[in-house]
């Protein structure tokens, strides 16, 4: 699984370099979460992406689309050749996911949308009394959006135990550190008092992710606060908020690939 995550990270770098795209660190830091979800946890059917029995995943932080596309291609939702078109003229694979790409459950880009929609999906499964789970990945700074808290209240009230919220807790946002802009602490306690099962784990640890995601909630919605490192795997990007927007030149790209392989 570690090798799989490495390959995905290198593919993200390649796509970002070849299309001169941003959001590199945002994509790199969620790779382990996506890898565990798609290879170990979720019930999916890539040949039939709309299979009625599937679990669903919403990438609410749509700016990490490069990571999602790479995972979906690797799971054969679509031909991996499409990845070469990422962010180029005429492609469906823009830098935020579009509805219509096989495997993309929700078009996202504006923050604060994924969790409310996931609540609707989870409510439906609850009403139908199924075992399906709805997973949604948001960024920590996304919790500055009011709509996120409307949904957190709703999920707590309706005990949506089939809803799993993963929070990419890298403590960075577009223009700086989260604590300097709108501090979210105490973060875990906020979810707990809103009626959620809450855990803080290492979001770049495949083992911890597997173990945590394998267990199912008995009665409450689940929030997994995933401590991640922005730009994970590429030392010069790690924990540097400026890599939310920066691009790679040839030298940096080659160095980044070496660092992933290290």
């Amino acid at each position, binding site marked *: 699984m570690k090798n799989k995550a490495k390959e995905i990270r290198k593919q993200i770098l390649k796509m970002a370099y070849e299309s001169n795209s941003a959001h590199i660190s945002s994509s790199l830091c969620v790779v382990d979460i996506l890898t565990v979800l798609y290879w170990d946890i979720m019930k999916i059917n890539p040949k039939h992406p709309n299979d009625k029995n599937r679990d669903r995943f919403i990438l609410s932080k749509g700016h990490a689309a490069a990571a999602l596309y790479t995972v979906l291609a690797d799971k054969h939702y679509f031909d991996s050749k499409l990845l070469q078109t990422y962010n180029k003229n005429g492609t469906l694979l823009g830098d935020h996911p579009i509805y219509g790409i096989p495997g993309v459950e929700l078009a*996202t880009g504006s923050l604060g949308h994924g969790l409310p*929609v996931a609540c*609707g999906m989870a*409510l439906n499964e609850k009403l139908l009394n199924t075992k399906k789970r709805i997973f949604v990945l948001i960024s920590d700074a996304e919790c500055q959006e009011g709509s996120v808290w409307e949904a957190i209240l709703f999920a707590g009230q309706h005990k949506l135990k089939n809803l799993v919220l993963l929070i990419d807790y890298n403590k960075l946002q577009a223009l700086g550190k989260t604590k300097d802009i709108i501090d979210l602490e105490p973060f875990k306690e906020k979810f707990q008092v809103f009626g959620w099962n809450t855990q803080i784990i290492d979001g770049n640890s495949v083992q911890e992710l597997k173990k945590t995601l394998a267990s199912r909630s008995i009665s409450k919605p689940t929030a997994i606060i995933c401590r991640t490192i922005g730009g994970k795997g590429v030392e010069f990007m790690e924990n540097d908020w400026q890599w939310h927007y920066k691009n790679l030149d040839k030298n940096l790209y080659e160095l980044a690939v070496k660092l992933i392989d290290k």
Partner: protein
Amino acid sequence: MRNAFVKQLVKQASANKNIILLTADLGYTVFEDYQKKLPKQFCNVGVAEANMIGIATGLALSGKTVLAYSIASFATLKTVEQIRNDTCVHNAHVIIVGSGSGFSYSNSGPTHHTLEDLAIMRTLPNLTIFSPADPQEAKWCLAQALKLKTPVYIRLGKKGEPNLYSKKPKLVLGKPGIIKQGKDYLVITTGNIAYNCLLAEKILEEKGLKGTILSMHTIKPVNTKVLGNFLKKYRHIITVEEHTLLGGLGSIISETIVDLKLKNCELKKIGVPDTFTFVSGDIKYIRDLYGLSPEKIADTILKELKK
């Protein structure tokens, strides 16, 4: 109108268990019967309109037919990005029901006046917009919305609107309904202000003038060809809307006249100017302020005819 709508909804939802009604904590004395009969098809999401549209979209993307209800301004303006990004981008079968449109909440100030919704909503791709004039149209709009399987906004008045058609109308999506026929002028209206247009017509009839009144129950899409055939027949065309003059019904007719290159019609738009209304009063009072009372509509038409 609202009561007829809800009665019809109870009937449709009883027959179709896939229908679910969400409200953002509004609908006092409106949904009690629905809730009692269909508790599993009802959810009060709390005072959280943006979340309601997100939840509605999630339910719809999972196969449900969802109605999302609030006061029209809250249902459309507070939620516009959710309606666009969630409902419309995904072409989800969410029926947004905005009640108390226009000046229905006249005493409640500009926060409750809904005068911009049509202008904003009609720019959203995939969205069908209904604006019924009376209970018969409201029931028909609901039936259409349930059949469509795509996003819908229904702009409702509040209550007490009478039936305007003398006999049961044959309504068609995108084509205006003919409330009254006459040769001297053409009034095109939408929503419950249509009643005042009918009363204005009666005033003018006493002066020997007979007009046609069309109800644009469908604001989007508009069958331009059919609308154009009406526009071609009249020199004097008057639009009447309880909505800002920017981007609503009057704009639709202006655009149609330009697009069809119609040269012989003179258009007068009656509606609310580009302003907020801070003065309070009952709906009759506020409508009169903006020339929307039957008497003032009749006066405006008369002035147009004398030109």
